[in-house]
């Protein structure tokens, strides 16, 4: 049998096999189109790739915070029922200033998960504003700085260089 024929046969067999396994499989899900995928493709890494259009300031964030966040996170982010978002002397050693190496993490998490009872209900402008507010409360940015897709990845978190991978050989 020539090489060409063997290759074709292998492909045909593979196609048959995959059709069979699809029939035997759990039958989960269906293909998603590019437009819908954008709603799910929410992860933002330190380089800020994928950050959406929008912007916000700490002052704008303060208004939203009072309405939607203060009930759990306390006045000025000092903490309450849930995690402190700003320095809370004597309350929590696990502060954002110490434990978040990139500001994009704050945007990523707030957008996908907050507020707790209505995740993903915030607009992109609101997420930028709240991120700006949290950064300002942590004295990382000034009260009048605007956070958007361009400025957010450039924010320098105070402990950016304080992390070390426990087992770098496992990466």
């Amino acid at each position, binding site marked *: 049998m020539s090489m060409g024929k063997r290759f074709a046969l292998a492909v045909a067999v593979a196609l048959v096999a995959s059709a069979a396994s699809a029939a035997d499989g759990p039958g989960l899900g269906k293909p998603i189109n590019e437009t819908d995928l954008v709603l799910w493709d*929410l992860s933002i890494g330190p380089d800020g790739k994928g950050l959406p259009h929008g912007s916000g300031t700490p002052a704008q964030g303060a208004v939203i915070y009072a309405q939607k966040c203060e009930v759990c996170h306390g006045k000025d982010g000092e903490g309450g029922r849930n995690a402190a978002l700003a320095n809370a002397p004597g309350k929590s050693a696990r502060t954002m200033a110490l434990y978040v190496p*990139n500001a994009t993490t704050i945007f990523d998490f707030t957008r996908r998960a907050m507020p707790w009872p209505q995740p993903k209900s915030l607009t992109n402008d609101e997420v930028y504003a709240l991120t700006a507010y949290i950064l300002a409360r942590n004295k990382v940015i000034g009260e009048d700085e605007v956070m958007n897709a361009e400025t957010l990845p450039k924010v320098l978190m105070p402990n950016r260089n304080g*992390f070390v991978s426990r087992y770098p050989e*496992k990466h």
Partner: protein
Amino acid sequence: MNRSIPIAKALDDAMIALYQNGERINPAQGYPMRLLVPGYEGNMNVKWLHRIKLIEEPVMAINETMQYTYRVAGPKIWQFFFPMEVKSFITHPSPGLTLKGPGFYEISGLAYSGNGRIGKVMVSADGGRSWAQAALDAPLLSKALTRFRMPWRWDGQPVLLQSRAWDEAGNVQPTRAEMFAERGEPKVNVPVTAFPMGHMNVVTTWAVDNKGEAKHVYG
């Protein structure tokens, strides 16, 4: 909930779990599908999995920065502490399981290593001064809870029971002293939920008194 997983692990023994024990995984366990990264931190086994994206660098998600990181002696914070390391503890006797008087007993417990199979478990009945090797239940499986057993004659006197495990990769369960030498002393009165000493796989000590009651002590 999102976490960055090394490609090396994805290509090693990671899997997408659909079934467990012959049936679909439970809603509480992540139905319809869950990422399973054997031996790695529980939170990395993402439940209700809906997306896997190939990336070049970790995204620095909240659950690998604000949480599941560990401050050690000095200013550094450990990140990406993937494996649950070798650990063992005695389940019988233990606080709540009281011995009914001097006689023959089986000291029994569990050992685990996220790095592979258990190599050996040693048991001490004198607070770590002398040790004997325990029997391990078969089959010996990688990254699985492993039962160990040690026949024991108790004379009714107060004793300090300890177990210490090694895994096949050569890692050994550390003593409290060894761990604190590496990571620094914990603050006192830390609430249990604060996780300041995550990956705390130190040797555990049960003090059994002459009434047969076991208590957790720092040996």
